């Protein structure tokens, strides 16, 4: 099999990967892999992953990877960065991990301006457990715990905006989408450079698809992502 357009930092033995076909995690990780190749940091970094579908990436890269508990990847990565400041420390998690169970740690890490990079995949639901409501679930969205779209009157969670607010614009905060991989790549690059340049906390939320739990075909998947981009504005929200 010709694999030349795979990022060099891929662990080839574990490809094809474990994500569902059409999953936005694979696209996000491929983009991250390209950035890692470009910066030549694969030997100088630790990749931390949460529980959620992100755990499927525990052996995705030929890179030091640590998988932890649901919502706990930020403190683990912070601990590594504290103990080994030269390491490029990247945390990768879902919206349930970051905005529900692990929100406290995410916000405090941002507040402390910890020099780490956090990439959070927003697919508007809990993928791994079968598509329940997440803090990012949109109004009227049908999930396995919001049948017919009930119980969705609350506002979807605006993560980068919140972090930007509490850090008074000191952190790098951005939202990108797997619908525009070129833009996603640029934002991941900026978020990693932010850490390397010692500027502090960097956070990218990635709008991503979960066709399995959205129960969408290709056309509807793209439409769903378009709708997400209207609810969650893509762009750089803050940086210094």
């Amino acid at each position, binding site marked *: 099999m010709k694999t030349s357009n795979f990022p060099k930092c891929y*662990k080839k033995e574990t490809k094809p990967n474990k994500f569902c076909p059409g999953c936005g995690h694979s696209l996000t990780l491929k983009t991250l892999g390209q950035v890692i190749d470009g910066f030549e940091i694969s030997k100088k970094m630790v990749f931390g992953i949460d529980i959620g579908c992100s755990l499927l990436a525990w052996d995705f890269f030929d890179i030091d990877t640590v998988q*932890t*508990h649901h919502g*706990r990847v930020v403190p683990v990565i*912070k*601990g590594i960065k504290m103990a080994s400041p030269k390491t490029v420390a990247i945390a990768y998690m879902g919206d349930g991990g970051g905005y529900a169970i692990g929100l406290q740690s995410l916000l*405090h890490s941002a507040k402390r301006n910890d020099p780490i990079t956090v990439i959070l995949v927003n697919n508007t639901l809990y993928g791994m457990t079968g598509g329940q409501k997440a803090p990012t679930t949109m109004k009227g969205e049908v999930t396995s715990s919001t049948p017919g779209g009930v119980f969705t009157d609350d506002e979807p969670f605006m993560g980068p905006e919140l972090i930007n607010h509490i850090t008074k614009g000191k952190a790098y905060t951005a939202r990108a989408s797997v619908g525009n991989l070129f833009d996603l790549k640029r934002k991941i690059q900026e978020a990693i450079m932010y850490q390397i340049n010692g500027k502090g906390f960097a956070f990218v939320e990635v709008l991503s698809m979960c066709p399995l739990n959205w129960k969408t075909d290709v056309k509807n998947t793209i439409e769903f992502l378009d709708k997400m981009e209207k609810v969650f504005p893509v762009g750089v929200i803050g940086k210094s």
Partner: protein
Amino acid sequence: MAVKVKAKKYLLTGNEIIVQAALDAGAEMFCGYPITPTTEILTGWAEKAAKDKNLLFLQTEDETSAGFTVIGGVLAGKKAWTATAGPGNILMQDPMSMAEAMRLPTVCYIGQRGGPSTGTVIYSQQEVTLTRFGGNGEGMRIVYSPSTLQELYDLTIKAFEAAWKYRFPTFVLGDGYLGKTLGDVDFHKKPKNYASYPFVQNGEINNLRNTFSIEEELYDNLKDHFKDFTEMSKDVSECEEFMLKDAQTVVFAHGVVGSATKMAVRELREEGYRVGLFRPITLSPFPSKETIRAVKRAKRIVIAESSYGQFGRIVREVLYGVTDIPVHRLYRPAVGIMPEDIVEKVKNISK
């Protein structure tokens, strides 16, 4: 502030002793969240870290985060540790179960306080079960139970040694009486300082996980842990056997209740009672062989503890089927046990 008593003797509180012991064991990083009776460990470390830039310190947003940040430090090769109590010990079980699964040498001091729930804030022996078996695993942990200030120092150092040597999460199970007592301690012992090492950024590519998709894969992994635990048990388990040779009554006690029992035994011996103390120094791995040996010639057993049988359950499990001599209980959950209480108990049952 340490007041120097004699050449190498210092007058310190228990919590100050713990900090000094951690430093002498080579600890470099502390993350924690304030909770009585262990707060002075956090503030004590913060004071040291403020003066020494090689010492890392983080006051986290909660104990869960403290434990996971410690895990990050350990993964990067630092002797990292934490201290907590009661409700904090509950939250600490989340990271400690990860440490147990991934065999990470974390060190955690527990200052037991009264429970359940918020309870009281200074003293109990009610965190035995939680500390030994907290988490959704099999209790592959090392747990030391110091009974004096000197032991607090020695066992805290040992905890770091054992953690890094055998790679099981290691706990020192104290309480607020010990932590807040002022006394002298001998720093003579030169600790061995078992070296730390990184689990990432160590020249290899490490893909570390605690999640498995195949049941047999996890089972194989656990079997290795059980084997390693059994093997290290004989080197790590420790106990004190005091006046047991001709003892007809054997009192089982640990921690500060062990100290009280020792005083009671001395007093009772003066009055002619044939009584002795068996005091496990490690609650996990438990000195089972010695426990069985201790009751060989005994006529009765007393189990004394400041909980409602958490320690007693361990002793009785070890002795199950070994002896049928009567077991007397002196269970006083979350209250202290004085030497007089033990003297009275032993006299009553010896009649």
